[in-house]
Each structure stands twice: as C-alpha cells, then as structure tokens.
C-alpha cells in the first residue's frame, strides 16, 4: 500500500519571490493491485505527483509511505542516459536493481522491438522509442506498483496492444497509477480516478463521472 498524506509541493519561481504552489493538501491511498487513473489538464501537476510518489523529488510538506516496491516514473524522458546506448542502459538498470543482465535484455528486446537500435545511443531514438525502452525496462524489473506517465498510449498500435497485455493482463495483480488523456484506456483498466485541478485533488469511484468532469475543466 502507498499512503499519501497531506501532500504539498511548491516550486520556486523564476520571476516571483513567492513560490508556485503545484500541489495542495493531497491525500489518498493506493492499495495492492489497485489501478488508479490520474486525470488533469497539462500543467495540473500529474507528473509532479508521480515524481513525488516515486520518491525522486521530495514534498515541501506532507508524507508518502511506501509499503511496496514502486517503479521510477515511466515517461518519455526518464531513467535512461541519452548519450549511452540502449544496451548500456539495460546493463546499468539491471545492475542497479539486481537483475541478471541477460534476462532483462531478452525481455526488453522482445517487448520494445528496438532491434539493432539497442546498440545505438538513446539520443538518436524517437520519443516513442524512448518510451518503449523505459517502459520495457520497468516491466522487466517487475515492481509491485508502476507509475506511468502517458506512455501506454505512446507508440504504434502493435506496441499499445503489447503494453496493455503486459501491464493489464500479465500483471493484473500489480498496482498502477496511470496518468493518461485517453478515456478508453482509463475506462477499461482503472477502478478509480483522481482528478487534479489547480493543485487540488479529488478522488472518484465513478470513472464516467471523473472523465466527464475532466472533460469540462
């Protein structure tokens, strides 16, 4: 379980002495195996919330308690060094999370379908290819809870089908926090939704209502 209590996050402003409030008094829980959607317009704080839950940034106030292993934020630019090749990144992450290199490599190779690009520097990848690598790596490491920022909807039809199969069918018992603008994915896979607006969060058990409110924001 992940327990988020009274979370506040301020960023310092470039032009103003007063810091910018991005998240304000947010509390909720993610149970084991629960699929939670995160809705909000661009700049609403979705990615910030995901970064805080993953523990790579610290909240200004409030606390996050993690009782299961939590992935890094799986997004377009995350967790992989861009001057390094795909293989270098696989080796690094396998080592970092104590997994056998070959196992991780085989999985990512099969999942991300990057072919010979794996021996090219990541900076030469397209945005979709990067997401595939990052997503594939996080699936290979196998966390209890995945934090996913948009990437399920990235890539071509084949990749989308494949990632839904890996994420929602094979890993049905894992928890998931999914930020997405695609109502279909949310409707078919999530059980609850958080809508973020002006730094505040509201939790909905009714997905259709959450999506309707999000569409009206």
């Amino acid at each position, binding site marked *: 379980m992940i327990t988020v209590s009274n979370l506040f996050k301020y960023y310092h402003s470039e032009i103003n002495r007063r810091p910018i409030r991005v998240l304000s008094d947010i509390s909720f829980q993610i149970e084991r195996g629960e699929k939670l959607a995160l809705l909000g317009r661009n700049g609403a704080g979705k990615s910030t919330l995901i*970064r805080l839950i993953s523990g790579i940034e610290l909240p200004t106030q409030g606390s996050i308690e993690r009782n299961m292993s939590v992935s890094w934020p799986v997004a377009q630019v995350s967790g992989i060094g861009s001057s*390094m090749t795909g293989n270098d990144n696989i080796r*690094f992450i396998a080592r*970092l999370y104590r997994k056998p290199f070959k196992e991780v490599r085989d999985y990512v190779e099969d999942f991300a379908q990057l072919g010979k690009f794996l021996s090219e520097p990541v900076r030469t990848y397209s945005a979709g290819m990067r997401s595939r690598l990052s997503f594939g790596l996080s699936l290979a490491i196998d966390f209890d809870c995945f934090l996913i920022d948009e990437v399920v909807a990235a890539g071509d039809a084949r990749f989308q089908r494949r990632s839904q199969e890996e994420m929602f069918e094979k890993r049905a018992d894992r928890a998931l926090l999914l930020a997405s603008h695609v109502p279909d994915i949310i409707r078919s896979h999530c059980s609850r939704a958080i809508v973020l607006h002006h730094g505040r969060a509201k939790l909905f058990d009714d997905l259709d209502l959450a999506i309707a409110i999000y569409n009206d924001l």
Partner: protein
Amino acid sequence: MEEEGTLRQLWRGFTIQREVVAALLQFQFVARWGRKNLGFAWLFCESLVFAFPVLAVWHFVRDPYEHGLPMTAFVWSGYMPLLIFRHVTGQALHTITGAVPLLYHRRITPFDLYLGHQGLEAIGNLSAVAFSFIVFYILGLIDLPYNYNILLLGFIYTTWWSMCIGLIVTALASRSEIVHHIWLPISYLYVFFCGFMFMAAWLPFKLREIALMIDPPLQCYEMIRAGLFGNQVQTFYDLSYITFILLTLTFVGLWLIQNVRKHLEL
C-alpha cells in the same frame, strides 16, 4: 520496520551504496570514454595531450634550471596536480543537472552520482599521473623521486582536496544559480594561487605564513615537491593541519549534499 540493529541498517545502506556506485562507475566509464577509437586508453593519453605541449613550451622558453630545479620535472609536478583539480572539479556544476535521467531512480542519491562521477575522474587522473611519470622517466625528462611515500601522499591529498571542492560545488550548484557564475572565474584564478608556478620557499616570510594557512593546495604541492626533489628544495607542509582542514571540508561537503534532493526540480 522490525527491531533491527543500527549497525545492521548501516551495513545494509552501505551495501546498497556500494552496488549503486559500482553500477554508476561502470556507466560513467562508458559514457566518459566510450568504446570507440582509443576507448579506455584515453584515460592515460588525455593527460599527455595536455601535458606534452605545455611542457615543451616551458622547456624551451625557460631556463632549464630555474631556482636550481630541473624545469621539466618542476612543471610536471605543477601541472599534474592542476589537471587532477581541473578534471575532478570541472564537471561539478553539472554532476546533478547533467544526470537528471539517472536521478529518476530513487536508489541513486546525489552523493552516489558525485562518487561515480568525480571518483572516476580521480581514479583516471591518478593513473594518468603514474603513466605520465613512467613516460617522462623513460624519455629521461624526470629523475626518480627522492621519497615515494611523500610524493604519493601529496597526490592523494591533492585528490582529496579536489574531491572536497568537487563535492561542495556539486552540492551548491544545485541550490543556487550564482554558483554557476562565480565558479568558473575561481577555477581559472586557481592556477595562480595553487602552487602550480611557485613554491612556498620563494614567498616572503609573512606571505608564506598566510599562504600556508589559507591555501590548502599549496601544502599538497609542497608534499609532492618534497617527495620529488627531496633536499634539493626547502618545503613547508604540516600534515596534521592539512588533514584537519580537509576533514572539515569533507564534512561541510557531506552536510551540504545530504538535502540536495529537496532542492531538485527534475
């Protein structure tokens, strides 16, 4: 958390850190030198690419026995520590900002990044010191050191000093923009006061006393030259004083870097 000894926790933390830093070292190693052309051999060659032209110029424009010292050896003893400092502190402004993707992994702390990044530079440059010495010795440009221990200690203290400054700059750079503007001029001015071009004995008495007190790299240089030239030169260093200064700087650096994640805006 269940009842668990503090020592045990400490040991577990240490094990994780060791694994993370080992992975980072490997990663940075490839990032720094790559697999193309000379690859890993650049580790040694880089320093020579710098050192040879500089030494050649000095060799021809200066009296070969200025201050009664063999010029080439003197310049080598000045230049190599400068390279260590330059390389170890050089990227410190970007240790954190240049590695944002890596910080997406919670297991990697800013201090781990620093150890991987600056540690690799330190190891690389120390190997380059040894390598260039051997090359110079074979070419007959430098004599064997008078006292290996003091020479080695001098280089180790130079590295320690550079690592301290690297740590402090790494930590400050992620907190304040100003550091980015003032660090570059400082690192250029460093050439003039570090001891690259002079020895404590050449300074007037009053100035020497002050310099030895407030200029830690000067003492490191003195050690290196004491080891290299022995009683050909008069050297001034106080091992306990410099150890105390560097320990203090180490703690300042560790204190500054411990909260860096709080200031990060990834």
